[in-house]
């Protein structure tokens, strides 16, 4: 309703301006029409329960929690895993609910949903006019994991592509879909490469428990593998691998010291950021060795999410996992805490809209 009013106001304003100034139309730029309340800001998704989405405007002047619920009158599932953005749409992936709610990314009005054919969906990315969603299947079943291919016009699962256990992040690049296999309920050590024209799957072996991945300036795929934790009884080292995607081979591996298991990784402006033991580390994408000292000490928080944009590092603190979390904003330059916003319960993903 709010948005309808807004639209009407803008239309009226636009009409007024265009009519009243019809004489000197050359001098007047058409006004910037807002695409919605949630444009030009930071979107923080929280797993819950209750799951929720928060918005913070880029200038930090406007904040709103429970965006999805405020707009649509109902909560976005219980277990909000991630959001994917494509054109003017946002795809809200709720893993335990086996659903992806499709919204207008600027208004967050629900425009449909993928309700069939998913099982524990995790992440979505887009290529070839289609959505590619990683699915764990049954947690206890190592052999039923798949990528669901979504027809974006009908929101139906068009086909599924079987992959190895625990497909996690999905990244589309140049006609290929790259999937890190964190392992779901188990552990895995591969990256799947799907050719979207044939749906053929190739795999690349990387370090154990690969999670975040991105393309660096040189066009190499960079993957953070957290390594198997000590409790598995088979602890392995964490690493950052660089993959030449023309040959699908690992060309460089930076290995962490034994016992070090970095959590989140982000990439911005030629710099790699990751979190290890509540310290934020940064390194140039070309660095041949891992940094030895953290640039930011996050203190005693439960770091749950990391993102970097322009001059700031954004980190979510999940607190005790049973209360509202915080979004902490650190300045890259000074390393100081610039701002703190209260966000949702188990806030985990940070997006720039």
């Amino acid at each position: 309703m709010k948005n309808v009013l807004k639209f009407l106001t803008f239309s009226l304003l636009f009409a007024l301006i265009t009519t009243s100034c019809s004489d000197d139309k050359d001098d007047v730029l058409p006004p910037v029409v807002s695409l919605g309340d949630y444009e030009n800001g930071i979107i923080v998704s929280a797993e819950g329960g209750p799951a929720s989405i928060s918005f913070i405007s880029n200038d930090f002047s406007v904040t709103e929690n429970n965006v999805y619920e405020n707009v649509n009158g109902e909560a976005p599932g219980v277990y909000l895993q991630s959001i994917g953005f494509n054109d003017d749409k946002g795809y809200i992936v709720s893993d335990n609910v086996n659903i992806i709610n499709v919204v207008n990314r600027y208004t967050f009005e629900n425009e449909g949903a993928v309700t069939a054919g998913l099982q524990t969906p995790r992440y979505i990315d887009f290529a070839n006019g289609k959505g590619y969603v990683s699915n764990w299947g049954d947690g206890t079943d190592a052999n039923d994991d798949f990528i669901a291919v979504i027809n974006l016009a009908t929101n139906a699962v068009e086909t599924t592509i079987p992959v190895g256990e625990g497909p996690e992040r999905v990244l589309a690049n140049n006609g290929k879909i790259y999937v890190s296999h964190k392992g779901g309920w188990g552990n895995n050590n591969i990256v799947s490469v799907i050719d979207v024209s044939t749906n053929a799957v190739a795999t690349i072996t990387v370090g154990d428990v690969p999670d975040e991945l991105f393309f660096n300036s040189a066009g190499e795929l960079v993957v953070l593998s957290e390594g198997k934790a000590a409790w598995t009884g088979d602890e392995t080292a964490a690493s950052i691998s660089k993959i030449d995607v023309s040959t699908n081979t690992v060309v460089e591996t930076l290995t962490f010291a034994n016992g070090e298991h970095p959590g989140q990784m982000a990439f911005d402006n030629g710099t790699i950021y990751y979190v290890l033991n509540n310290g934020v580390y940064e390194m140039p994408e070309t660095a041949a060795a891992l940094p030895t000292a953290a640039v930011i000490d996050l203190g005693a928080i439960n770091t749950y999410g990391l993102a970097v944009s322009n001059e700031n590092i954004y980190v979510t603190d999940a607190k005790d996992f049973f209360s509202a979390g915080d979004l902490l904003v650190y300045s890259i330059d000074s390393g100081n805490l610039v701002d703190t916003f209260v966000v949702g319960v188990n806030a985990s993903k940070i997006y720039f809209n």
Partner: protein
Amino acid sequence: MKQGLFIGFFWCFCCAAWAQTSLDSLQQLDEVLLKADRYLKTFSNTQSVNVLKDSVVTRSTASLTNLLNYNSGIYFKENGLGMVSSPSFRGTTAQQTAVTWNGININSQFNGQTDFNTINIRSFNDISVRSGGGSVLYGSGAIGGSIHLNNNLTFNGGFENSLYANYGSFNTVDVGYTSRFSSDRLSVDVAISRIQSDNDYTYVNSEKENLNGAFYNQSLAANVGYKINSKNSLKLYSYVFDGERHFSLIFPTETPTKYQDVNSRTMLEWLGLYQRFTSTLKLAYLTEKYKYFPNINKELHTFGEAKTLLGKYNLEYKLLENATLQGVVDVTHTKGESSSVNKTNRTISGFSLLFKQQLKNFLYEATLRQEVTNNYESPLLYSLGLQYKLGKHYTVNVNGSKNFRIPTYNDLYWEGSGNTNLKPETAYQVEFGQELLFKHITFKATGFYNDITDMIRWLPTGSLWRPINTDHVVTYGLESQLKINVNLNAHKLSFGGHYAYTVSENQETKKQLIYVPKHKGSAMFNYQYKRASLYYQALFVGEVFTLSDNNPRYMIDAYTVSNLGAEYALGKAQQFVLGVQAKNIFNEDYQSVADRFMPGIHYNFYLNFNF
């Protein structure tokens, strides 16, 4: 199959024993009751013990959750009707309420708690609620209080049968059959019960339906007592429970899951009364098994299985005419294994000393217990209770105790995460109770204060979630109970009510624990005229927080649920009772757990036939 065989043998034994008993000895003797849990009588004088009557049980649905929700101050967090249900007794956690079966602690070895929807109340003939600390007597978890499921054996009761059948909304069938035979030396008691429900109610004010909520459970209890001679008697208790629940969904697109429980308990007890000595030897074997199917359509599941062998010897010595001393030695050996816990054995030995003396109007009881195990450091547990009777109508009780909740199998041995350095959670408790007792009115009120430290919580340490001793919680409040009975010629009126005020505060954050209401009350009015009765039950649960920061946005609203029932007794001895109930008559739209909506108005019919 094994259980089937066991039951077969059991019946053979019973029949053989029956045949040996001469039937003419049945007549003319007073009924004698052998209590399964003697501590409830002997060492619970300075605390409140509330025995739930048969009539109350008849009017309740089969789950222990429902029975206690309407008849005690205990709060229940129920994940939808019939689903996982955990108590908060005096503001404590689910692991801080002990459930005992004929005196033996039966909380799960894996998670340390009892799911109150996996207990069918029709298998027991005495269900009691004991408020406050009792770890010396009942072990781990007896912090907020304890629930006692007992099968008392009657002698000289003849042959009695009781049939209960209930059919209601959502295709719910609840049946129970109890058969008892007792002579002066032999007592046999068998109870079979089953409940099943489609549990597919539609939500109040919504088109939505409770999906995937079907459940059933069945239990068999068989108990035998045999008086060998005037001094010695043997009792054999046995119980098997088998249940399956489909866990209800919040969203229709969720993957449906199911959960199965199979529990069995057997205990042999030898009771000897030798002048000043009373000797009790108990040998018990308990098994618990669960399977969780994350997808109802697949065979894949996770599981847990624990077997516990327990031996307990209790020697009671009448020191003076008014004073008794008891020494207890027990050994509990558990073998447990689950999808996430490697096969692990644990042995706990315990030594207790109990003393009680009655001096005119003054009674005091003192207890001590030390457990020894190689798993963790076990604290010395104790209690001291004083009772003073001021005249005929007024009694004052003071009780102080130290209690604990031991780390569970999951806490200690969870693959990779288990923390073998855990300490038990410990609680210091004081309570002050007053009781007014008149012919028609009983009023009890108890103020309590609990200081609980080293609460075990799972927290991430790096990428790994591990249990650690962290929280410090103080709970305090008031429990009260009022009973009124008035008879005016053929008109009988009765009222029973409970009210509990509870503060349960994390000492670091100063916030109320989630899912602990400050106010909880229940009431029952009954009006009986000759063969007809009309009754009204009400439950009030105050608002609860669902987030630890006590964010008011995510509070669950308070709710009041009212039930109305009517009964009519037929037959010469009014042995045939027909009843009808309408539940949630005001169609309250409520949830016990966030997004887990409970049913609106629904109905059931029942009959209870004693023959």
